[in-house]
């Protein structure tokens, strides 16, 4: 497999794993398990940072003219990155809302 494809697959793996964690974190908060939700957010962020490192390397390659072509798998990887980023923001918002709901239920 050529170099660019491997970069893309690595990026998809990291940000895809992050996205899964963020979505699972919302589910945990929905069940009232905020400890698990926080753990999943932290795990997701770790994968997300790794994904961003790979993405940074890709951008550097593009800037230095090493990226010879735009492939479908590269577009797909960028798409996954965007989706993970969106879910990160939304998951944190959802967890906050569930936390606040939990507080009001206890009163």
């Amino acid at each position, binding site marked *: *497999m050529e170099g660019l494809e491997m970069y893309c*697959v690595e990026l998809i*793996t990291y*940000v895809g*794993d992050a*996205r899964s*964690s963020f979505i699972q974190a919302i589910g945990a908060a929905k069940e009232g398990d905020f400890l698990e939700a926080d753990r999943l957010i932290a795990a997701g962020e770790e994968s997300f940072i790794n994904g961003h490192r790979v993405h940074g390397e890709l951008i550097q390659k593009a800037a230095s003219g090493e990226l010879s072509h735009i492939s479908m*798998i590269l577009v*797909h990887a960028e798409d996954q990155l965007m989706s993970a980023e969106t879910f990160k923001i939304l998951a944190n918002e959802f967890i906050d809302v569930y936390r606040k709901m939990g507080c009001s239920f206890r009163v």
Partner: protein
Amino acid sequence: MKNILVVCSAGMSTSLLVNKMKETAEKKNIEVKIWAISEAEIKNHIDEAHIVLLGPQIRFMADKIRAVAGTKPVEVINMADYGTMNGERVLNTALEKIGDAE
């Protein structure tokens, strides 16, 4: 003949992995059917599969897919194996799990 269904969100990165797995199977003369689909199509393919492998990007759907799969094993592919497209290790693990399930 073992049937291995590999699922991810679009069926794109798994297609690359499936090619690697097929290469290994051919080299080792293992008779398997391996194919990649997107998670949206899973209901149309699950009957044929002996095992369902999931990409890390749809790990969050594992419970839902297990509910559809019944007694069939549903496994999330190891992140390191997925990221490096290690078809050999993914194939070996899948065959082991099929063996365990039988």
